[in-house]
């Protein structure tokens, strides 16, 4: 039964991807299918809750089938497209790239081992027990989003989070899963597949494989591929949302505009505080449309990206009606202790340094260090060859990183310690640390596709092929 549920989720996502555009690569289709499919399954749960229909696997199967059939009216054409894509894949792999195969084998082995670990242990993390998995199990049992635990304030902190993450757990529970962690594996797989395909758009297979390996092997991210926590899945949505939008802006490719907007919508459907990333992406778009004056696109993007955020906000206010103190204390002003604590932790994370109980190097390995090294090399190259040649449209990506990080940092600066029942130091060592995942695919994408890397990997490819 669980296989049916997951297959339906993939089919639904794949149908949407093919409806958006038939020109996506197979890797993009595979990665997006699960993310969009699971996102839509939780939208179904939300809509069923609104119309007060209790969730059952039968109801979900029916809804899925109706949606899949409606989206596949041109099924023979879709089949033809897939046939062509598979033929193209066969043709492109006729000359074996041994280096890529070698790197792929390492990725596959690491993925296999972390999956074994993930599927062996049931969720036992504090946040999962007090919130995510508890909500998921009770939602599946009671067949509604506003479960009885809200009445007694026993729902946990994630009770007011949008339902994508714990809803995805409920979805697999409804299909008979004993533990929901298969979902974590599939989120991780989607993140890796999409990252690979986006990097591959700009560089060669070896570079794309190598950077996918660096992404997957990032120690803290790899550890989270075996934990039932929401940060890695959120990164799985933020990665395609930001990178697809960037590719749309850079290459003016319409299909990436649609993919970016849909994924951005799901970012705030998995975590409301991802709204900071929506704002940063809108800034990135604004920088570009400032020149083209195509403001219509900006508004369409904003509407698609913000709609889920507003819908959930209204649901919490009107249906859940949970009395809540504000998570943010905007009257905080200038607080030296808080700022210096936050800056010290941030410095440790970004420059692989130790600070109190954390060590940036142990957590994120070479990710941020290599980003800064690449940035410095490119800045030096820009002096020699000109900014436009070296940076091109990548200033958009850098602007995004800067704005998103600024907003993310500010979010924590104004956080209300009393409401969170945690000190700023402990928040920096836990929540902030895990939130750094959202930046990892983006900074690695820059490192992989920047001017200096392209030169380096171009030379490597020339040597490899003997061209």
């Amino acid at each position, binding site marked *: 039964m669980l296989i049916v549920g997951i297959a339906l989720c993939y089919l639904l996502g794949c149908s949407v991807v093919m409806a958006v555009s038939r020109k996506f690569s197979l890797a993009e289709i595979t990665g997006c299918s699960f993310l969009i499919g699971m996102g839509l399954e939780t939208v179904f749960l939300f809509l069923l809750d609104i119309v007060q229909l209790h969730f059952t696997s039968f109801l979900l199967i029916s809804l899925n089938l109706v949606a899949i059939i409606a989206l596949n009216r041109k099924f023979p054409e879709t089949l033809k497209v897939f046939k062509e894509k598979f033929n193209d894949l066969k043709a492109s792999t006729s000359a074996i790239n041994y280096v890529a195969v070698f790197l792929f084998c390492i990725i596959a082995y690491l993925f296999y081992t972390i999956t074994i670990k993930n599927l062996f242990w049931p969720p036992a993390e504090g946040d999962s027990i007090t919130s995510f998995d508890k909500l998921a199990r009770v939602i599946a049992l009671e067949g509604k989003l506003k479960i009885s635990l809200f009445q007694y304030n*026993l729902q946990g902190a994630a009770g007011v989070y949008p339902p994508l993450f714990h809803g995805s757990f409920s979805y697999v529970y409804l299909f008979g899963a004993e533990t929901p962690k298969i979902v974590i594996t599939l989120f991780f797989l989607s993140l890796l597949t999409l990252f690979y395909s986006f990097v591959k758009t700009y560089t060669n297979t070896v570079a794309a494989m190598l950077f996918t390996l660096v992404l997957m092997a990032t120690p803290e991210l790899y550890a989270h591929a075996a934990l039932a926590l929401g940060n890695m899945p959120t990164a799985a949505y933020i990665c395609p949302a930001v990178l697809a939008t960037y590719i749309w802006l850079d290459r003016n490719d319409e299909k990436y505009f649609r993919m970016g907007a849909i994924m951005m919508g799901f970012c705030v459907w998995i975590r409301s505080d991802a709204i900071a990333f929506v704002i940063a992406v809108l800034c990135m778009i604004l920088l570009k449309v400032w020149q083209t004056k195509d403001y219509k696109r900006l508004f369409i993007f904003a509407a698609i990206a913000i709609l889920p955020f507003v819908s959930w906000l209204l649901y919490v206010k009107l249906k859940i009606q949970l009395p809540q103190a504000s998570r943010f204390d905007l009257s905080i002003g200038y607080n030296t202790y808080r700022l210096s604590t936050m800056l010290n932790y941030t410095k440790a994370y970004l420059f692989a340094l130790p600070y109190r109980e954390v060590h940036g190097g142990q957590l994120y390995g070479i990710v941020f*260090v290599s980003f800064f090294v690449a940035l410095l090399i490119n800045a030096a190259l820009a002096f020699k060859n000109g900014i436009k040649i070296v940076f091109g449209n990548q200033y958009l990506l850098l602007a995004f990183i800067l704005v998103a990080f600024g907003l993310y940092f500010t979010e924590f600066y104004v956080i209300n310690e009393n409401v969170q029942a945690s000190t700023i130091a402990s928040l920096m060592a836990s929540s902030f640390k895990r939130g750094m995942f959202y930046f990892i695919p983006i900074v690695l994408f820059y490192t992989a596709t920047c001017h200096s890397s392209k030169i380096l990997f171009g030379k490597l490819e020339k040597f490899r092929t003997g061209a």
Partner: protein
Amino acid sequence: MARGKQHPPSDKPEKKPTASSSGFSVGPFFRNFIIIFLLSVIFIGIYSLNDKRVELPDLYNELQTLKERPGNHDERINEIEHRINEIETDTSFLKTLFVGYFDEIHFVAFGVQDQIDKVTAEIQNGSNTPLTREDKLNYKVHTYRLLDFINANSPSNAVILLPPTDSLINDSRWNYVYDPGWVEYFIYPRLCIETGHEKENPELARRITHVLIVNGIGYDKLKYDVPLDKREKVCLLPINKPVDVPETTDTTQTSN
């Protein structure tokens, strides 16, 4: 100018291609091999940077065993502590940059199957029955037996009064059995409320059916008296006078 110039067909015999009929080319193969070799050297180099850490789990295990074992083992304890300190404080920038990768490769990628086999053997304890979710939770959550005991000894509509946080927060053996948000995961559909928070949730407080006694704390919440000689340290008692003898559990011995 010369770039666009068409070269006339040469009379020289064409250089013999190294490719076979299947398209296999020796040149590119060796070039690929060289890159793979270099990558392997880099990966192994990164791995060996922190290979001393392999000793850590055994050292920590031995240290714990010696500390628990009666007798004088000071010399060996000092030796182990010195070695652990030597490994843990070897923190050059390059080493710490790659230490996370070492741990993940050595302890997760290479070690996960062994760990799972070890845990499975430990839980199965000689039997060959497949492990359930409950078995694994029991292994991970050291108060699981107590929580399971609550489920076995109270009706599904029970409301449990948990001990106050400040009475147990310094005793890690009872971690989180005072936290309603945490306990609820294990006892649903039963409900729970923490002692001292009754005013925040008066409706639930009115419905309390059972009191969870831990470390002998909570007898004052019962609406009847339990003789001192019959007071168990850990048990679940109905808030109103029971008909039978109070149920007790032996979780203190099973908790680790």
